[in-house]
């Protein structure tokens, strides 16, 4: 579904990604793990159109998207739950969730279905978005991304700053997303949680893919070497 080839991304003169190759199929869950500054967020931003690659290609369902603006890419079916949630403070909880519909895509996800997935949100539907707890804000951000009825959902560090029980709740909701063949990219610093739900994993280090494979086949040593870069 998504195919990335030889992606090089620069911030001005500073190179952040060096020739990334990446693949994900419909219905798959792929995690990207790595330390801070490894290039994970840069990669996601490029996928969503917030950054332009210097060279390389990104094909989504066969079409190149590396030169499209973010709003067009959202309309094509890629939705992101951004790092730090990034709900709109001026909007209520319900308005935030509904803002996902600006992508103009129709599909199985409706407001009612999001509320069934995250009942806590319905209780606070008219409250200002920032009055929610961290975990609830994360649910709202996921709900917002789901309302765009994506084919590819990207979750950037959704467990950051949340209590373990809350993380468990959120991850428990993830399998429902994959029912319609939606692909899921999970970016996490928490290696174990991410690997436990993934079909495939990539490890980033210093802007390169340092390790990839099915979680079951990767040993703990391999992973920590690829994560921390110990020679």
């Amino acid at each position, binding site marked *: 579904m998504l195919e990335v080839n030889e992606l090089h991304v620069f911030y001005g003169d500073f190179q952040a990604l060096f020739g990334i190759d990446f693949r994900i199929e419909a219905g798959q869950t792929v995690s990207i793990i790595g330390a801070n500054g490894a290039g994970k967020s840069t990669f996601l931003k490029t996928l969503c159109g917030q950054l332009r690659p210097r060279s390389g290609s990104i094909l989504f369902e066969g079409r190149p998207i590396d030169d499209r603006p973010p709003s067009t890419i*959202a309309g094509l079916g890629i939705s992101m739950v951004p790092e730090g949630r990034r709900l709109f*403070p*001026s909007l209520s909880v319900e308005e935030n969730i509904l803002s996902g519909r600006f992508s103009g895509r129709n599909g199985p996800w409706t407001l009612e279905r999001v509320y069934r997935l995250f009942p806590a949100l319905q209780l606070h539907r008219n409250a200002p978005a920032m009055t929610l707890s961290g975990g609830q804000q994360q649910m709202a951000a996921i709900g917002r991304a789901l309302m765009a009825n994506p084919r590819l959902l990207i979750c950037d560090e959704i467990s950051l700053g949340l209590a373990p029980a809350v993380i468990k709740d959120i991850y428990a909701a993830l399998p429902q997303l994959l029912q319609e063949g939606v692909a899921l990219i999970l970016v996490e610093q928490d290696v174990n949680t991410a690997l436990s739900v993934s079909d495939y994993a990539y490890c980033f280090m210093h802007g390169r893919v340092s390790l990839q494979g099915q979680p079951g086949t990767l040993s703990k040593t391999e992973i920590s070497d690829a994560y921390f870069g110990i020679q």
Partner: protein
Amino acid sequence: MDWLAVVMHGTLAGGGYALFAIGLSLAYGVMRLVNIAHGDFIVLAAYIALVIAVASGLHPLLALPIVAAIMFGLGYLLQRTVLNRVLGPDILPPLLVTFGLAIILQNGLLEVFSADARVLPAGTLATDSVSLGGGLAVGLLPLATFMTAVACTLGLSWLFRYTRLGVAFRATSDDPHTAQLVGIKDKHIYALAMGIAFAVMAVGGVFMGMRASFTPDLGPSYLIYSFEAVVIGGVGSIWGTLAGAILLGVAQGVGYSFGPGWGILTGHIVFLLVLLFRPAGLFSRSQP
């Protein structure tokens, strides 16, 4: 000094300033853009209305929808083709580009229409007055201007709170990057915001053109009044802008009663005082 009359007339004058200021408030609220040519575009609207009124014999109020439509299109195009290119973290380019536009507009209007003072022919609307009882009478035109200003404020407030476009405006204003991520086409949204701002500016230009004579060099004054109204009322609140405009009108009215040279200066002084003691404005909406 008849305080009631001064306050009443000042309040109504504030209606005109509110129509000026709403456009500035909207553009700044949605995209952090300060359009230095703001006042000059209001003057342009008055001249457009003049041309239409003279050419077709229509009363300016009837010509108003046409002028508003033209200005909406102009604002949309301007934002889409020129201003969207210079929007960004650096404040200098949009400031300088709109500054250049102001110079072009002022001198262009001067070349085409000369420096003669013009007025929009409003007929009896400009001269009739309405009695409010107790010996107090106000002009029909200032009253109409004020009520139009309140209506515009109401309309825009409703737009922001209850429509999908309003959600898009608020979301883009909060976080343009994330707004793009959810599929909001920011370039189009910015252009729509500017178009609406220009339409309200057209209303302001037509009403003020009927009320007093205008010349090509009035743009800067209109910009300053708009700006003062927005700052006094508090950035970010459209009802605050209306309140700020009313306060400005009243301050000027009080000043005028002391002498012709003091009217505008008093408005400036009140503005500076608000800036000194309550920089966030008198009615600013505090965000969490």
